[in-house]
């Protein structure tokens, strides 16, 4: 067993776990944060994307022990109380989801994309950046629209972003 201490959605967490525990398993099974999904378990689909020290990573391909001492943000950590994060609100507004299975990973990837590439995102950039996220339902069209709108909205809500 190994001891891990990390910060998840702003809260300090310490646990004794087997070293082979994946970060996604730790989040879902130990912390019961089931918003992070497992779609493929083979590093392809992006349903498991969370932020590790602010960067999007596939939590099915990171060991929980590798996150020791680090900051993890999951989909549950995005909304401020009852207010959806601007990217979440944009997905709702633009029908960026159907079954919702891929959505947490899409949104975490999108927020990371805005961090790296800013608020004015064209369609080509968004589609290219979504290569690691698969959706079986939407055909991506509305996801792309939602991300463009969410990116703009994030730029108009500077106070919210700073609080993240």
């Amino acid at each position, binding site marked *: 067993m190994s001891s891990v201490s990390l910060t998840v959605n702003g809260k300090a967490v310490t646990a004794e776990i087997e070293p082979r525990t994946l970060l996604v398993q730790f989040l879902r099974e130990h912390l019961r944060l089931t918003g992070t999904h497992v779609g493929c378990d083979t590093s392809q689909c*992006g349903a498991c994307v969370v932020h590790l020290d602010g960067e999007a990573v596939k939590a099915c391909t990171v*060991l929980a022990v590798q996150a020791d001492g680090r900051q993890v943000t999951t989909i549950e950590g995005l909304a401020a109380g009852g207010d959806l994060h601007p990217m979440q609100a944009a997905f709702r507004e633009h029908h960026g989801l159907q079954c919702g299975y891929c959505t947490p990973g899409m949104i975490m990837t999108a927020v990371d994309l805005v961090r790296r590439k800013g608020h004015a995102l064209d369609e080509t950039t968004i589609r290219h950046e979504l290569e690691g996220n698969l959706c079986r339902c939407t055909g991506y069209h509305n996801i792309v629209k939602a991300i463009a709108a969410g990116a703009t909205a994030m730029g108009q809500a500077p106070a919210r972003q700073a609080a993240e």
Partner: protein
Amino acid sequence: MYAFDYHRPATLKEALSLVAKQEDAKIVAGGHTLIPTMKQRLAAPGHLIDLGRIPDLVGIERTPRAVTIGAMTTHGAVAESADVKEAIPALSELAALIGDPAVRHRGTIGGSVANNDPSADYPAACLALGATIITSKRRIPAEEYFRGLFETALEDGEIVTGVSFPIPHKAAYEKFRNPASRYALVGVFVAKRPSDIRVAVTGAGSNGVFRWAEAEEALAKRFSAKSLDGLKAPADDLIGDLHADAEYRAHLIGVMARRAVQAATER
């Protein structure tokens, strides 16, 4: 995944002694090849030595003649480095084409060259640019380092600490991506170096990355995409699989090489 003991050394020295001490130890860098392999139970190390907390292995250093990248530097960091963009833009573009953004946040250059997947991108850059692989023991020229499918010159317990790329006059990388895996179906890196011209091909060789000698000779006469007209890579030693047969890969090598030369001349 089978159970293992986890170690997190703080220095290279500590990592080397851990690797030497445990018989069934394996290094984990970004884990983006190793963790999937362990999940499939194709690898089952008893001890995992994590290089993720050794600060000396991370970073990019630029001198007038070379760019040296620490083994634990992620693909994302290479893609975004202003130094790499300026000195060897083709290398920055190559890094930006590896996998997807999340993969690039974890995967490392050291892991990529240690693994030497026949469809990986970095081996092509190493061979074309004439890079040196720096290890815990020695410096190995790329030509001597890549030895075949997943085979390298690394000895047991030897750790890659960095890769040094000489700065070329011009270079470009063109990759035909497998749309499902994002690995190279064929990738061609062309480099016009102070001393010669090199063309390295990944994704296609049944012995891994290789140099295309006929193309290099043709380009030495004149560095222009036209020089490659009519030149076809031999299909004999190429990979043929469900994604593409050898003939198709041979064709793609020519197409990617011409595009790469064109892109390099336009730099």
